[in-house]
């Protein structure tokens, strides 16, 4: 060998640094569309039609687009709707999934494997193929244009059952046996012993579920037909249809629709990433 060891190591470090810079450049390119839409949201109408295009808006304090947006359409209501739907579905799906996850992880009963496979197979069916029959069901019981109707497909998530089962399986049986010997009921065990131990999984699930709920489109489009039942995504599309080609306004609405998720992403990135990884690493 001509190259001695330290040189080789040095070369490796150079290579890794070079790679790091390349990855930073490409990473920045990934952000360009997001940056561009934020910049556009602060521009005036003449500014967006200027050629050659300008990067920065003349003033970052130009909130006219946001003001006009709220004046034209009830975006406050859309936000309220999205949050209400997310909260209803979060409470329901978390409670149901924790119960089932506990049963699968820590209680022995017949046909357990069969039931688990049933729920897992449901996990593989995309909700989109069920929109039509679900809509007709909602129409028959009169839940169209209602919060329960909007939340309906989200009241239960098979993914949650899977996630909590995986997480609870890792809890040693001795904890539970000790409580059982003390005469605690299963509900009490679940509440006092298990819940404090599964906080990371709970946090991850809640964030992922919130993200899915917030970003949904086809179902709220179909079920929330009146304007006062629009969610943020549906409202965004309705608004953009109304202000076609007014890209400063559309950009403002787009930015505002992303902000809640972006906040969660920035503040709770760890849990979000953890949840997605957990959702991804199923056996």
């Amino acid at each position: 060998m001509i190259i001695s060891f330290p040189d080789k190591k040095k070369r490796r470090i150079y290579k890794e640094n070079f790679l790091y810079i390349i990855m930073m450049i490409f990473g920045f390119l990934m952000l360009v569309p997001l940056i561009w839409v934020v910049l556009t949201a602060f521009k005036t109408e003449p500014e967006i039609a200027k050629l050659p295009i300008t990067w920065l808006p003349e003033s970052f304090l130009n909130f006219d687009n946001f003001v006009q947006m709220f004046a034209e359409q009830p975006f406050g209501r859309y936000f309220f709707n999205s949050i209400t739907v997310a909260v209803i579905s979060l409470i329901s799906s978390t409670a149901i999934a924790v119960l089932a996850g506990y049963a699968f992880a820590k209680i022995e009963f017949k046909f357990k494997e069969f039931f688990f496979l049933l729920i897992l197979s449901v996990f593989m069916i995309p909700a989109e193929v069920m929109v039509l029959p679900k809509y007709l069901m909602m129409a028959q019981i009169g839940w169209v244009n209602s919060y329960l109707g909007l939340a309906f497909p989200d009241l239960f998530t098979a993914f949650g059952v899977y996630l909590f089962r995986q997480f609870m399986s890792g809890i040693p049986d001795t904890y539970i046996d000790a409580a059982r010997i003390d005469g605690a009921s299963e509900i009490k065990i679940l509440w006092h012993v298990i819940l404090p131990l599964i906080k990371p999984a709970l946090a991850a699930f809640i964030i992922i579920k919130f993200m899915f709920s917030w970003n949904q489109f086809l179902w709220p489009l179909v079920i929330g037909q009146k304007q006062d039942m629009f969610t943020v995504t549906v409202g965004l599309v309705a608004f953009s249809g109304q202000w076609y080609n007014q890209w400063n306004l559309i950009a403002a609405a787009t930015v505002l629709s992303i902000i809640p998720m972006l906040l969660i992403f920035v503040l709770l990135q760890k849990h979000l990433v953890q949840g997605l990884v957990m959702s991804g690493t199923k056996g």
Partner: protein
Amino acid sequence: MLKFLWISFWGKSVKQRRSRMGYLFLLPSLFFVTLHFIIPTIYNIVLSFSEWHIIRPLEFVGFEKYIDVLTSDEFWEALSRTLYFTLLSVPITITSALIVALALYRIGPRKGSALVRAMYFAPVVASLTAVAYIWTWMFNPAYGLLNEILKFFYLAPIQWLNDINQVIPSLSIMYIWSRLGFDMLILMSGLTAISPDYYEAARIDGANRWHSFWNITLPLLNQQLVLVCVVEIMMALKVFELPYAATNGGPVNASRTLVMHIYETAFQWNRMDEAAVASLALFVIILIVTALQHFFLSRKIHY
């Protein structure tokens, strides 16, 4: 008497009682599985064999609606467009996600590496509707950023979403951008789970980088790769928001995907029966693709 009923329901022994509790805990889930999947599936199948009216009850018509749908050009065009979109988007998304994941893994944890990872991941949190508008503005032929960049390099401007032949590739670009981060994250979690001992052993045996990638990384990443493939193909086959918000299926229906076809048939043309047939077709396609992937790609690997 009451006590007898109580005992026969709850069981005599502690063990029996506990297993009853198990069923009880499972009950809400099974209720929703029935309500969300079993009943709708049956309903959809019944609907596909019926004539649907707003007021009148369903009327059995056998395979009539199947014939209507399967002989219509609209259905096949929507299907082939969707498949084209999927074939275009999924391999590029997964390959680039794998490259990014490998590069970030190679760089390893260092100052700012979490931030770089977040840069790739950030688009994932945006809804597909928002993604559609972000990119429609980027793609704008007159004032869009992309044509401006092309101009900078003295290249001819592209019509992007306004051109029949370019609209699907343009939608693919949006899709790849918004999905790359998720796949990267899953693949990275797989990469970090591989023990460095394997690479060390391979290096001692004289394997080069390419060999270790091919014989260690890929096989041990199999589980994550299968998952990413299954998820991405499913997501691409049911793409709806992107064409709906960005192009409304245009120009001249060139971006009307299968789910858009289903949506329009059902909710704009009020032909629920035909939409049910198309939904069923999508369902079967997704089932077949998922099953095939499990069959061909899932291998249990023991080291």
